Protein backbone atom coordinates (compact mmCIF):
# COMPACT_ATOMS: atom_id res chain seq x y z
CA UNK A 1 0.00 0.00 0.00
CA UNK A 2 1.53 3.36 -0.94
CA UNK A 3 2.20 5.63 2.02
CA UNK A 4 -0.12 8.60 2.15
CA UNK A 5 1.59 11.90 1.33
CA UNK A 6 1.35 14.17 4.30
CA UNK A 7 3.03 17.08 2.60
CA UNK A 8 2.58 18.62 -0.84
CA UNK A 9 4.55 16.80 -3.53
CA UNK A 10 7.29 19.31 -4.04
CA UNK A 11 10.39 18.61 -6.09
CA UNK A 12 13.24 21.06 -5.65
CA UNK A 13 12.90 23.69 -8.40
CA UNK A 14 15.90 24.91 -10.39
CA UNK A 15 16.02 28.04 -8.27
CA UNK A 16 17.96 29.30 -5.31
CA UNK A 17 17.07 28.26 -1.78
CA UNK A 18 18.42 28.91 1.69
CA UNK A 19 19.69 26.80 4.55
CA UNK A 20 17.11 26.91 7.33
CA UNK A 21 18.54 27.52 10.82
CA UNK A 22 16.74 27.75 14.16
CA UNK A 23 17.04 31.56 14.56
CA UNK A 24 14.93 31.97 11.39
CA UNK A 25 12.07 29.54 12.11
CA UNK A 26 9.60 32.21 13.15
CA UNK A 27 10.62 34.72 10.46
CA UNK A 28 10.19 32.09 7.75
CA UNK A 29 6.76 31.10 9.02
CA UNK A 30 5.57 34.69 9.42
CA UNK A 31 7.12 36.25 6.32
CA UNK A 32 7.03 33.23 3.98
CA UNK A 33 9.94 34.58 1.93
CA UNK A 34 9.98 33.70 -1.77
CA UNK A 35 12.70 31.07 -1.38
CA UNK A 36 12.49 28.35 -4.02
CA UNK A 37 13.22 25.68 -1.42
CA UNK A 38 14.89 25.08 1.92
CA UNK A 39 17.58 22.76 3.19
CA UNK A 40 18.33 21.64 6.75
CA UNK A 41 21.06 19.63 8.40
CA UNK A 42 19.48 16.22 8.91
CA UNK A 43 21.10 15.64 12.32
CA UNK A 44 19.46 18.75 13.81
CA UNK A 45 16.17 16.86 13.49
CA UNK A 46 17.30 13.46 14.74
CA UNK A 47 15.55 14.08 18.07
CA UNK A 48 12.19 12.40 18.53
CA UNK A 49 10.19 15.61 18.92
CA UNK A 50 10.10 19.08 20.40
CA UNK A 51 10.63 22.48 18.82
CA UNK A 52 12.97 21.54 15.93
CA UNK A 53 10.57 19.03 14.35
CA UNK A 54 7.56 21.14 15.23
CA UNK A 55 8.89 24.06 13.20
CA UNK A 56 10.30 21.92 10.41
CA UNK A 57 6.97 20.20 9.83
CA UNK A 58 5.10 23.51 9.75
CA UNK A 59 7.61 25.03 7.37
CA UNK A 60 7.62 21.91 5.21
CA UNK A 61 3.97 22.55 4.38
CA UNK A 62 5.03 25.65 2.49
CA UNK A 63 8.41 24.78 0.96
CA UNK A 64 10.14 21.93 -0.87
CA UNK A 65 12.80 20.49 1.40
CA UNK A 66 16.25 18.96 1.08
CA UNK A 67 17.96 17.03 3.89
CA UNK A 68 21.70 17.54 4.11
CA UNK A 69 23.67 15.22 6.41
CA UNK A 70 26.97 16.03 8.07
CA UNK A 71 27.53 12.94 10.22
CA UNK A 72 27.17 9.72 8.23
CA UNK A 73 30.95 9.35 7.81
CA UNK A 74 30.57 7.66 4.43
CA UNK A 75 34.31 7.26 3.89
CA UNK A 76 35.16 5.69 7.26
CA UNK A 77 36.57 2.16 7.40
CA UNK A 78 34.28 1.52 10.39
CA UNK A 79 31.00 -0.22 9.61
CA UNK A 80 28.29 2.17 8.48
CA UNK A 81 26.53 3.50 11.56
CA UNK A 82 23.16 1.74 11.44
CA UNK A 83 21.64 3.78 14.25
CA UNK A 84 22.49 6.94 12.32
CA UNK A 85 21.03 5.54 9.09
CA UNK A 86 17.88 4.49 10.90
CA UNK A 87 17.39 7.94 12.33
CA UNK A 88 17.90 9.39 8.87
CA UNK A 89 15.41 6.96 7.37
CA UNK A 90 12.83 7.86 10.03
CA UNK A 91 13.35 11.57 9.37
CA UNK A 92 12.97 11.04 5.62
CA UNK A 93 9.67 9.24 6.23
CA UNK A 94 8.55 12.05 8.51
CA UNK A 95 9.31 15.12 6.39
CA UNK A 96 9.38 13.69 2.85
CA UNK A 97 12.35 15.60 1.44
CA UNK A 98 12.87 15.87 -2.30
CA UNK A 99 16.64 15.47 -2.00
CA UNK A 100 18.92 13.78 0.55
CA UNK A 101 22.62 14.54 0.54
CA UNK A 102 25.83 13.70 2.40
CA UNK A 103 29.54 14.45 2.07
CA UNK A 104 32.35 12.68 0.26
CA UNK A 105 34.50 12.43 3.37
CA UNK A 106 34.96 10.58 6.64
CA UNK A 107 34.57 11.81 10.20
CA UNK A 108 34.98 8.83 12.52
CA UNK A 109 37.16 5.81 13.11
CA UNK A 110 37.12 3.17 15.83
CA UNK A 111 33.77 4.57 16.96
CA UNK A 112 35.38 7.92 17.74
CA UNK A 113 33.87 10.92 15.91
CA UNK A 114 35.67 14.11 15.00
CA UNK A 115 32.36 15.64 13.91
CA UNK A 116 34.32 17.31 11.15
CA UNK A 117 34.42 16.67 7.39
CA UNK A 118 37.80 15.07 6.78
CA UNK A 119 38.89 14.45 3.18
CA UNK A 120 39.67 10.98 1.91
CA UNK A 121 42.94 10.11 0.26
CA UNK A 122 42.02 9.87 -3.42
CA UNK A 123 43.19 6.35 -4.19
CA UNK A 124 41.71 3.32 -5.94
CA UNK A 125 41.23 1.68 -2.56
CA UNK A 126 39.30 4.65 -1.14
CA UNK A 127 37.23 4.92 -4.33
CA UNK A 128 36.24 1.28 -4.07
CA UNK A 129 35.52 1.57 -0.35
CA UNK A 130 33.46 4.75 -0.36
CA UNK A 131 31.52 3.63 -3.44
CA UNK A 132 30.53 0.39 -1.72
CA UNK A 133 29.37 2.36 1.30
CA UNK A 134 27.36 4.84 -0.75
CA UNK A 135 25.63 1.89 -2.45
CA UNK A 136 24.92 0.38 1.00
CA UNK A 137 23.46 3.64 2.26
CA UNK A 138 21.36 4.11 -0.89
CA UNK A 139 20.07 0.54 -0.59
CA UNK A 140 19.23 1.03 3.07
CA UNK A 141 17.41 4.29 2.44
CA UNK A 142 15.82 3.05 -0.75
CA UNK A 143 16.70 6.21 -2.63
CA UNK A 144 19.46 8.07 -4.38
CA UNK A 145 21.87 10.15 -2.34
CA UNK A 146 23.60 13.29 -3.52
CA UNK A 147 27.24 13.38 -2.50
CA UNK A 148 29.05 16.67 -1.91
CA UNK A 149 32.70 17.57 -2.44
CA UNK A 150 34.22 18.93 0.80
CA UNK A 151 36.71 21.74 1.19
CA UNK A 152 40.08 20.63 2.47
CA UNK A 153 43.16 22.02 4.15
CA UNK A 154 45.55 19.17 3.41
CA UNK A 155 46.39 16.62 0.73
CA UNK A 156 47.64 13.12 1.47
CA UNK A 157 50.84 11.63 0.12
CA UNK A 158 48.78 8.53 -0.79
CA UNK A 159 46.55 10.45 -3.21
CA UNK A 160 46.92 9.34 -6.82
CA UNK A 161 43.68 10.62 -8.39
CA UNK A 162 42.66 14.27 -8.71
CA UNK A 163 39.62 15.03 -6.53
CA UNK A 164 37.45 15.92 -9.54
CA UNK A 165 38.13 12.58 -11.19
CA UNK A 166 37.49 10.80 -7.90
CA UNK A 167 34.13 12.55 -7.46
CA UNK A 168 33.09 11.77 -11.04
CA UNK A 169 34.12 8.14 -10.60
CA UNK A 170 32.10 7.81 -7.37
CA UNK A 171 28.99 9.08 -9.15
CA UNK A 172 29.65 6.73 -12.06
CA UNK A 173 30.17 3.73 -9.76
CA UNK A 174 27.21 4.28 -7.44
CA UNK A 175 24.59 6.15 -9.43
CA UNK A 176 24.59 8.81 -6.72
CA UNK A 177 23.98 12.40 -7.71
CA UNK A 178 26.52 15.14 -7.17
CA UNK A 179 25.98 18.11 -4.91
CA UNK A 180 28.63 20.43 -6.23
CA UNK A 181 29.78 22.92 -3.60
CA UNK A 182 31.23 25.81 -5.56
CA UNK A 183 32.70 27.50 -2.50
CA UNK A 184 34.43 24.26 -1.50
CA UNK A 185 35.99 23.93 -4.95
CA UNK A 186 37.26 27.50 -4.69
CA UNK A 187 38.60 27.08 -1.12
CA UNK A 188 40.43 23.87 -2.01
CA UNK A 189 41.69 25.28 -5.32
CA UNK A 190 43.31 28.20 -3.50
CA UNK A 191 44.61 26.03 -0.66
CA UNK A 192 46.10 23.39 -2.92
CA UNK A 193 46.79 25.39 -6.05
CA UNK A 194 44.66 23.60 -8.62
CA UNK A 195 42.53 25.07 -11.40
CA UNK A 196 38.89 25.35 -10.30
CA UNK A 197 37.69 25.52 -13.91
CA UNK A 198 39.41 22.24 -14.68
CA UNK A 199 37.51 20.76 -11.72
CA UNK A 200 34.18 21.88 -13.20
CA UNK A 201 35.05 20.52 -16.63
CA UNK A 202 35.72 17.04 -15.19
CA UNK A 203 32.30 16.69 -13.57
CA UNK A 204 29.62 14.93 -15.66
CA UNK A 205 26.87 17.42 -16.45
CA UNK A 206 23.96 15.10 -15.83
CA UNK A 207 25.15 14.02 -12.37
CA UNK A 208 24.94 17.49 -10.81
CA UNK A 209 21.56 17.94 -9.14
CA UNK A 210 22.35 20.66 -6.64
CA UNK A 211 24.95 23.33 -5.95
CA UNK A 212 26.03 25.02 -2.73
CA UNK A 213 27.29 28.54 -2.18
CA UNK A 214 28.71 29.90 1.06
CA UNK A 215 31.27 32.29 2.49
CA UNK A 216 34.70 31.28 3.77
CA UNK A 217 37.14 32.87 6.20
CA UNK A 218 40.86 33.44 5.86
CA UNK A 219 43.29 32.24 8.53
CA UNK A 220 46.34 34.49 8.28
CA UNK A 221 49.71 33.50 9.64
CA UNK A 222 53.08 35.24 9.50
CA UNK A 223 54.17 32.98 6.68
CA UNK A 224 50.97 32.75 4.64
CA UNK A 225 47.25 32.20 4.74
CA UNK A 226 44.73 29.45 4.24
CA UNK A 227 41.03 29.58 3.42
CA UNK A 228 38.67 27.91 5.89
CA UNK A 229 35.15 26.87 4.92
CA UNK A 230 33.25 28.45 7.82
CA UNK A 231 29.86 29.25 6.23
CA UNK A 232 30.08 32.50 8.15
CA UNK A 233 30.04 35.22 5.49
CA UNK A 234 28.60 36.37 2.17
CA UNK A 235 29.62 34.50 -0.94
CA UNK A 236 32.96 35.91 -2.12
CA UNK A 237 33.30 37.61 -5.54
CA UNK A 238 35.55 34.94 -7.10
CA UNK A 239 33.09 32.26 -5.93
CA UNK A 240 30.26 34.09 -7.71
CA UNK A 241 32.40 34.06 -10.87
CA UNK A 242 33.05 30.37 -10.54
CA UNK A 243 29.33 29.86 -9.95
CA UNK A 244 28.50 31.64 -13.25
CA UNK A 245 30.90 29.30 -14.95
CA UNK A 246 29.27 26.30 -13.25
CA UNK A 247 25.77 27.41 -14.22
CA UNK A 248 26.93 27.78 -17.82
CA UNK A 249 28.22 24.21 -17.78
CA UNK A 250 25.58 22.46 -15.68
CA UNK A 251 22.56 24.60 -16.53
CA UNK A 252 20.14 26.02 -13.98
CA UNK A 253 20.53 23.67 -11.01
CA UNK A 254 18.91 24.13 -7.56
CA UNK A 255 21.39 26.25 -5.61
CA UNK A 256 21.61 26.70 -1.86
CA UNK A 257 22.92 29.61 0.18
CA UNK A 258 24.49 28.10 3.32
CA UNK A 259 25.22 30.15 6.42
CA UNK A 260 25.86 28.20 9.62
CA UNK A 261 27.94 30.34 11.98
CA UNK A 262 27.45 33.99 12.94
CA UNK A 263 24.03 33.63 11.37
CA UNK A 264 22.80 37.03 10.07
CA UNK A 265 19.20 38.27 9.76
CA UNK A 266 17.10 36.33 7.28
CA UNK A 267 17.13 39.31 4.91
CA UNK A 268 20.87 38.89 4.31
CA UNK A 269 20.42 35.28 3.26
CA UNK A 270 17.59 36.33 0.97
CA UNK A 271 19.81 38.95 -0.71
CA UNK A 272 22.39 36.27 -1.42
CA UNK A 273 19.63 33.99 -2.67
CA UNK A 274 18.37 36.69 -5.06
CA UNK A 275 21.89 37.09 -6.45
CA UNK A 276 22.03 33.36 -7.17
CA UNK A 277 18.53 33.44 -8.68
CA UNK A 278 19.63 36.27 -10.95
CA UNK A 279 22.47 34.16 -12.36
CA UNK A 280 20.15 31.16 -12.78
CA UNK A 281 17.63 33.35 -14.62
CA UNK A 282 20.27 34.76 -17.00
CA UNK A 283 21.25 31.23 -17.88
CA UNK A 284 17.66 30.12 -18.48
CA UNK A 285 17.19 33.17 -20.67
CA UNK A 286 20.38 32.45 -22.63
CA UNK A 287 19.31 28.88 -23.20
CA UNK A 288 15.92 29.89 -24.55
CA UNK A 289 17.38 32.69 -26.70
Amino acid sequence: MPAAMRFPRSPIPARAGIGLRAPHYRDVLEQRPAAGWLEVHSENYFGAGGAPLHYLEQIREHYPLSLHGVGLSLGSTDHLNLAHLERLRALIARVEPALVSEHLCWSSIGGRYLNDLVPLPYTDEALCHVSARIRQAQDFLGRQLLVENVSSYLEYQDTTIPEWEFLAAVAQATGCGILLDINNIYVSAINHGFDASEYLRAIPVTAVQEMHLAGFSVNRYEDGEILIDTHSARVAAPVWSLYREAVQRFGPVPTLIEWDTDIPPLAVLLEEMHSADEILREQRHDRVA
Partner: protein
Amino acid sequence: MTALHELQCGFVAAVFGEDDAPFAGKVRDGRFPGARLVQIYRNNTFASLTAALIAVYPVVVRLVGEQFFRYAADRYIHAHPSTSGNLHDFGGRFAAFLATFAPATTLPYLPDVARLEWAYHRVFHAAGHAPLPHDQLAAVPPAQHGHLVFGLHPATRLLESDYPLLRIWQANQPGAAHEQIDLNEGGVRLLVFRRDLDIEFKRLSNGEFLLLRAFSFDRRFDEACAMALEAEPQLDLAGILRQHVSLGSVASFRLDLSFV
Protein backbone atom coordinates in the same frame (compact mmCIF):
# COMPACT_ATOMS: atom_id res chain seq x y z
CA MET B 1 45.18 -3.38 8.04
CA THR B 2 44.39 -1.54 4.82
CA ALA B 3 46.14 1.68 3.89
CA LEU B 4 42.92 3.67 4.24
CA HIS B 5 42.19 2.25 7.68
CA GLU B 6 45.75 2.89 8.79
CA LEU B 7 45.58 6.45 7.54
CA GLN B 8 42.31 7.13 9.36
CA CYS B 9 43.56 5.68 12.66
CA GLY B 10 46.78 7.67 12.35
CA PHE B 11 44.90 10.87 11.56
CA VAL B 12 42.67 10.60 14.61
CA ALA B 13 45.60 9.73 16.89
CA ALA B 14 47.36 12.85 15.60
CA VAL B 15 44.27 15.03 16.07
CA PHE B 16 43.94 13.85 19.66
CA GLY B 17 47.65 14.44 20.19
CA GLU B 18 48.16 10.85 21.28
CA ASP B 19 50.73 9.79 18.77
CA ASP B 20 51.92 11.74 15.76
CA ALA B 21 54.25 8.99 14.54
CA PRO B 22 51.81 6.78 12.55
CA PHE B 23 50.65 9.81 10.60
CA ALA B 24 54.01 11.50 10.07
CA GLY B 25 54.80 11.83 6.39
CA LYS B 26 51.20 11.09 5.35
CA VAL B 27 50.45 14.72 4.48
CA ARG B 28 52.01 16.62 1.63
CA ASP B 29 53.73 19.84 2.52
CA GLY B 30 51.54 22.46 0.89
CA ARG B 31 51.19 26.10 1.79
CA PHE B 32 52.47 24.99 5.20
CA PRO B 33 54.30 21.91 6.47
CA GLY B 34 52.02 18.87 6.76
CA ALA B 35 52.02 18.85 10.56
CA ARG B 36 50.61 22.38 10.64
CA LEU B 37 47.85 21.40 8.23
CA VAL B 38 46.82 18.58 10.58
CA GLN B 39 46.70 21.22 13.32
CA ILE B 40 43.87 22.96 11.40
CA TYR B 41 41.76 19.80 11.68
CA ARG B 42 42.65 19.49 15.36
CA ASN B 43 41.47 23.05 15.94
CA ASN B 44 38.26 22.54 13.94
CA THR B 45 37.41 19.32 15.78
CA PHE B 46 37.98 20.73 19.24
CA ALA B 47 36.27 24.00 18.35
CA SER B 48 33.09 22.32 17.14
CA LEU B 49 32.90 19.84 20.01
CA THR B 50 33.57 22.63 22.52
CA ALA B 51 30.89 24.77 20.88
CA ALA B 52 28.46 21.86 21.23
CA LEU B 53 29.21 21.66 24.98
CA ILE B 54 28.88 25.44 25.38
CA ALA B 55 25.47 25.25 23.71
CA VAL B 56 24.23 22.56 26.12
CA TYR B 57 25.89 23.87 29.29
CA PRO B 58 25.53 27.69 29.28
CA VAL B 59 25.00 27.89 33.06
CA VAL B 60 28.13 25.85 33.76
CA VAL B 61 29.99 28.22 31.41
CA ARG B 62 28.69 31.18 33.36
CA LEU B 63 29.58 29.67 36.71
CA VAL B 64 33.17 28.76 35.86
CA GLY B 65 33.97 31.34 33.17
CA GLU B 66 34.66 30.63 29.53
CA GLN B 67 38.40 30.07 29.89
CA PHE B 68 38.01 27.44 32.58
CA PHE B 69 35.15 25.84 30.67
CA ARG B 70 37.26 25.56 27.51
CA TYR B 71 39.99 23.83 29.51
CA ALA B 72 37.48 21.41 31.06
CA ALA B 73 35.93 20.81 27.62
CA ASP B 74 39.32 19.97 26.14
CA ARG B 75 39.96 17.41 28.90
CA TYR B 76 36.43 16.03 28.50
CA ILE B 77 36.76 15.62 24.72
CA HIS B 78 39.93 13.58 25.29
CA ALA B 79 38.40 11.50 28.08
CA HIS B 80 34.98 10.93 26.47
CA PRO B 81 35.24 11.46 22.71
CA SER B 82 32.14 11.94 20.63
CA THR B 83 30.63 8.61 19.57
CA SER B 84 27.89 9.90 17.29
CA GLY B 85 27.63 11.68 13.99
CA ASN B 86 24.94 13.79 15.63
CA LEU B 87 26.52 16.56 17.73
CA HIS B 88 23.34 16.80 19.82
CA ASP B 89 24.29 13.42 21.32
CA PHE B 90 27.61 14.74 22.58
CA GLY B 91 28.20 15.70 26.21
CA GLY B 92 26.02 13.26 28.16
CA ARG B 93 28.81 12.32 30.56
CA PHE B 94 29.93 15.86 31.31
CA ALA B 95 28.27 15.94 34.76
CA ALA B 96 29.99 12.71 35.80
CA PHE B 97 33.24 14.04 34.38
CA LEU B 98 32.97 17.29 36.35
CA ALA B 99 32.38 15.30 39.54
CA THR B 100 35.86 13.82 39.21
CA PHE B 101 37.58 16.81 37.58
CA ALA B 102 40.03 17.95 40.24
CA PRO B 103 40.11 21.67 39.30
CA ALA B 104 36.30 21.84 39.73
CA THR B 105 36.04 20.26 43.18
CA THR B 106 35.76 23.68 44.83
CA LEU B 107 32.32 23.94 43.21
CA PRO B 108 30.60 20.81 44.57
CA TYR B 109 27.22 21.79 43.06
CA LEU B 110 28.64 22.04 39.53
CA PRO B 111 27.95 18.40 38.49
CA ASP B 112 24.30 18.82 39.52
CA VAL B 113 24.02 21.99 37.43
CA ALA B 114 25.41 20.04 34.48
CA ARG B 115 22.93 17.23 35.17
CA LEU B 116 20.08 19.76 35.06
CA GLU B 117 21.32 21.25 31.79
CA TRP B 118 21.64 17.80 30.19
CA ALA B 119 18.10 16.96 31.35
CA TYR B 120 16.92 20.23 29.76
CA HIS B 121 18.70 19.32 26.51
CA ARG B 122 17.19 15.82 26.40
CA VAL B 123 13.70 17.09 27.20
CA PHE B 124 14.06 19.69 24.42
CA HIS B 125 14.65 16.97 21.80
CA ALA B 126 12.41 14.24 23.26
CA ALA B 127 9.33 12.81 21.58
CA GLY B 128 5.88 14.25 22.03
CA HIS B 129 3.04 12.22 23.50
CA ALA B 130 -0.74 12.57 23.57
CA PRO B 131 -2.32 13.32 26.95
CA LEU B 132 -3.49 10.41 29.06
CA PRO B 133 -6.95 9.23 27.95
CA HIS B 134 -9.14 10.24 30.93
CA ASP B 135 -12.18 8.24 29.92
CA GLN B 136 -10.18 5.04 29.65
CA LEU B 137 -8.65 5.65 33.06
CA ALA B 138 -12.06 6.38 34.55
CA ALA B 139 -13.29 3.05 33.18
CA VAL B 140 -10.76 1.07 35.25
CA PRO B 141 -12.66 -0.55 38.17
CA PRO B 142 -11.49 0.78 41.57
CA ALA B 143 -10.52 -2.75 42.62
CA GLN B 144 -7.86 -2.67 39.91
CA HIS B 145 -6.40 0.77 40.68
CA GLY B 146 -3.48 -0.78 42.54
CA HIS B 147 -2.59 -2.67 39.38
CA LEU B 148 -2.22 0.44 37.23
CA VAL B 149 1.23 1.15 35.86
CA PHE B 150 1.55 4.82 34.90
CA GLY B 151 4.04 6.07 32.34
CA LEU B 152 5.75 9.46 32.34
CA HIS B 153 5.77 11.62 29.21
CA PRO B 154 8.95 11.00 27.13
CA ALA B 155 9.82 14.68 27.48
CA THR B 156 10.24 14.59 31.28
CA ARG B 157 13.23 14.08 33.55
CA LEU B 158 13.41 13.80 37.35
CA LEU B 159 16.31 15.28 39.30
CA GLU B 160 17.26 15.70 42.92
CA SER B 161 20.09 17.71 44.36
CA ASP B 162 21.44 18.63 47.80
CA TYR B 163 21.84 22.19 46.49
CA PRO B 164 19.30 24.89 45.57
CA LEU B 165 19.74 23.88 41.95
CA LEU B 166 16.72 25.65 40.47
CA ARG B 167 17.67 28.97 42.06
CA ILE B 168 21.25 28.58 40.81
CA TRP B 169 19.94 27.90 37.31
CA GLN B 170 17.49 30.81 37.39
CA ALA B 171 20.04 33.27 38.75
CA ASN B 172 22.35 32.43 35.86
CA GLN B 173 19.92 32.99 33.02
CA PRO B 174 20.61 35.90 30.67
CA GLY B 175 19.22 39.07 32.20
CA ALA B 176 18.58 37.55 35.65
CA ALA B 177 18.87 39.93 38.59
CA HIS B 178 21.99 39.56 40.72
CA GLU B 179 21.13 37.31 43.62
CA GLN B 180 23.01 35.86 46.58
CA ILE B 181 22.32 32.15 46.99
CA ASP B 182 23.09 30.27 50.19
CA LEU B 183 24.35 26.87 49.09
CA ASN B 184 23.32 25.46 52.47
CA GLU B 185 19.68 26.56 52.17
CA GLY B 186 18.69 23.00 51.25
CA GLY B 187 18.25 20.74 48.29
CA VAL B 188 15.55 20.44 45.70
CA ARG B 189 13.64 17.78 43.78
CA LEU B 190 12.61 18.72 40.28
CA LEU B 191 10.55 17.62 37.34
CA VAL B 192 11.87 18.95 34.02
CA PHE B 193 9.08 18.91 31.46
CA ARG B 194 7.86 20.52 28.28
CA ARG B 195 4.74 22.67 28.08
CA ASP B 196 3.95 23.27 24.41
CA LEU B 197 7.49 23.82 23.17
CA ASP B 198 8.93 25.48 26.27
CA ILE B 199 10.93 23.69 28.93
CA GLU B 200 9.69 24.22 32.48
CA PHE B 201 10.66 23.07 35.96
CA LYS B 202 8.35 22.02 38.75
CA ARG B 203 9.51 21.69 42.34
CA LEU B 204 8.35 18.40 43.84
CA SER B 205 7.81 17.36 47.42
CA ASN B 206 9.72 14.30 48.56
CA GLY B 207 6.69 12.00 48.32
CA GLU B 208 5.66 13.44 44.94
CA PHE B 209 9.19 12.87 43.64
CA LEU B 210 9.22 9.28 44.88
CA LEU B 211 5.82 8.62 43.33
CA LEU B 212 6.92 9.86 39.90
CA ARG B 213 10.25 8.09 40.18
CA ALA B 214 8.43 4.83 40.95
CA PHE B 215 6.31 5.45 37.80
CA SER B 216 9.49 5.98 35.79
CA PHE B 217 10.68 2.56 37.00
CA ASP B 218 7.39 0.92 35.89
CA ARG B 219 6.24 0.23 39.46
CA ARG B 220 2.57 -0.55 40.00
CA PHE B 221 0.46 2.19 41.49
CA ASP B 222 0.04 0.38 44.84
CA GLU B 223 3.81 -0.03 45.20
CA ALA B 224 4.48 3.54 44.04
CA CYS B 225 1.95 4.88 46.56
CA ALA B 226 3.52 2.87 49.37
CA MET B 227 6.95 4.31 48.57
CA ALA B 228 5.63 7.85 48.48
CA LEU B 229 3.53 7.52 51.65
CA GLU B 230 6.39 6.03 53.60
CA ALA B 231 8.39 9.20 53.00
CA GLU B 232 5.43 11.59 53.26
CA PRO B 233 2.42 10.08 55.10
CA GLN B 234 0.19 13.15 54.53
CA LEU B 235 0.65 13.13 50.77
CA ASP B 236 -2.53 13.80 48.75
CA LEU B 237 -1.94 10.99 46.24
CA ALA B 238 -5.14 11.47 44.24
CA GLY B 239 -4.60 15.22 44.00
CA ILE B 240 -0.99 14.79 42.86
CA LEU B 241 -1.90 12.22 40.25
CA ARG B 242 -4.65 14.49 38.89
CA GLN B 243 -2.23 17.39 38.74
CA HIS B 244 0.40 15.47 36.79
CA VAL B 245 -2.16 14.01 34.42
CA SER B 246 -3.38 17.52 33.67
CA LEU B 247 0.21 18.79 33.26
CA GLY B 248 0.79 15.93 30.87
CA SER B 249 3.80 14.65 32.80
CA VAL B 250 1.91 11.41 33.51
CA ALA B 251 0.92 10.51 29.97
CA SER B 252 0.00 6.84 29.78
CA PHE B 253 -1.12 3.83 31.80
CA ARG B 254 -1.56 0.12 31.46
CA LEU B 255 -2.95 -2.55 33.74
CA ASP B 256 -0.64 -5.12 35.25
CA LEU B 257 -2.97 -7.93 36.30
CA SER B 258 -0.23 -10.49 36.77
CA PHE B 259 -0.04 -12.52 39.96
CA VAL B 260 0.31 -10.39 43.09
